């Protein structure tokens, strides 16, 4: 069975500090991977997606970057956090190809102070 693990569960960080969020998918080879962001009470906004190792496409610019260093790992990061980065970050995967079902991790709640 496929499992998706996100870390950390929650973070409180200072404005201007760096950030690194991680996501690991087990049990599925070469999945499509996604990062989503959700403001409190808001909808889910796709930030990045990746169809293969080393390849990441940006969907929305939020002064964040993403990398896929391994087939099963997706990292979201920034060198300088802004207050507007606060929210809920969700990693997701789907099978390769186009239109397939998407599955989400449990998310990381980020508070920037």
């Amino acid at each position, binding site marked *: 069975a496929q499992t998706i693990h996100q870390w950390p569960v929650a973070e409180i960080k200072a404005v201007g500090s760096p950030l690194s969020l991680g996501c690991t998918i087990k049990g599925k080879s070469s999945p499509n991977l996604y990062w989503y962001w*959700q403001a409190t009470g*808001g909808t889910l906004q796709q930030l990045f997606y990746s169809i293969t190792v080393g390849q990441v496409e940006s969907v929305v610019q939020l002064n964040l970057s993403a990398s896929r260093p391994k087939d099963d790992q997706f990292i979201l990061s920034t060198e300088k956090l802004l207050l507007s980065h606060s929210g809920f970050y969700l990693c997701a995967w789907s099978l390769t190809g186009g239109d397939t079902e998407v599955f989400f991790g449990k998310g990381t709640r980020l508070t920037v102070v």
Partner: protein
Amino acid sequence: GDQVKQSPSALSLQEGTNSALRCNFSIATTTVQWFLQNPRGSLMNLFYLVPGTKENGRLKSTFNSKESYSTLHIRDAQLEDSGTYFCAAPTSGGNYKPTFGKGTSLVVHP
């Protein structure tokens, strides 16, 4: 404008009653997903649909691709059905970008 529009934005139900949520699409889509987000934030997959109908327990969902809408029916609502329901559809254009509606916030009360 919004490519995926959900209605209503909020709903209050008494336990044991029935209701329907709706999702309208202004994009051509061949599939739709429905999710339930719990208060902690976790997203549970409810349905993944091609045109047609699926049923799971007290939930039933229909996707009509010709008229570009999907519905989620909740029968005999229970307290644990409370949360935010999202629908999502993949947009076209070369990359796979599941686009979410703004959600329906459902509260089921005794």
